[in-house]
């Protein structure tokens, strides 16, 4: 009787061997995975300088693309003015005072359209350049790259970027008082530049 039981146990053990081996393999894999994820060195390291370096590169790139005046404007005031390309009349197009309307391009803020002659604010265009790589996180461009992207879009195909933007009256995202202050700062900045230009030319 005992011998028969031992024989049955032996047969059951032999039959169960593949199952036991499979479970043992799974357990080893699970244990290795647990060890791997528990290793503090496997956590991706946060690089605090990455964004700063990205912004530094973006500023250099912007500087190499826009003209000296636009670069100085961005450096000193934090935005760039881009002239509008459209004109209602042909005479407006060739007007000596510059474009009939223009845009203020801020980093990560809506583009503001205004009339340079009167300072009248026309509208704000909310536009962004979203991450298309599908990497998961909602990354955004460095500030200066955002300005450059808007500048390139406006100077190359103004209609396309304006069509894609969400248009609102000024005041939805930007404080109109602040935009008017920026226009005043821009006018002062241009006056100072002009004075410096007159001084340097008269000094020659």
């Amino acid at each position, binding site marked *: 009787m005992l011998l028969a039981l031992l024989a049955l146990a032996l047969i059951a053990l032999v039959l169960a061997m593949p199952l036991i081996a499979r479970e043992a393999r799974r357990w080893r894999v699970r244990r290795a995975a647990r060890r791997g994820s528990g290793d503090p060195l496997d956590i991706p390291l946060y690089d605090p300088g*990455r964004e700063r370096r990205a912004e530094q590169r973006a500023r250099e790139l912007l500087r190499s693309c826009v003209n000296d005046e636009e670069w100085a404007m961005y450096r000193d005031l934090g935005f760039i003015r881009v002239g509008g390309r459209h004109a209602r009349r042909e005479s407006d197009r060739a007007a000596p005072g510059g474009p009939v309307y223009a845009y203020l391009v801020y980093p990560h803020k809506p583009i503001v359209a205004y009339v340079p002659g009167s300072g009248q604010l026309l509208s704000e265009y909310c536009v962004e350049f979203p991450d298309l790589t599908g990497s998961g996180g909602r990354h955004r461009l460095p500030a200066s790259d955002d300005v450059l992207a808007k500048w390139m879009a406006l100077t190359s195909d103004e209609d396309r970027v304006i069509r894609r933007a969400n248009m609102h009256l000024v005041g939805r995202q930007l404080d109109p008082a602040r935009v008017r202050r920026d226009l005043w700062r821009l006018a002062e900045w241009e006056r100072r530049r002009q004075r410096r230009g007159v001084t340097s030319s008269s000094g020659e």
Partner: protein
Amino acid sequence: MKPGHGEVLLAEGDPRVREEEERLIEEFRRQLDEGMWAAVPTTHPGSGRREAQLVKTYGDIPTGADRVIFFPRASGG
């Protein structure tokens, strides 16, 4: 321009060299397939005015352009 990273060099080469041009074309197409816009910064010879030129095909790139900048396409914010 890559969100979260800024400027990234994708490919470089001399378009007059056949193998290098093929590599440039391949990267150009890949970027456009991913939905990026491509632009070439230009300077008007007369006025010196700076602006960008959007390019939709490799053939649109002006002769002598030293770089093409890819950036995510604009959408309403």
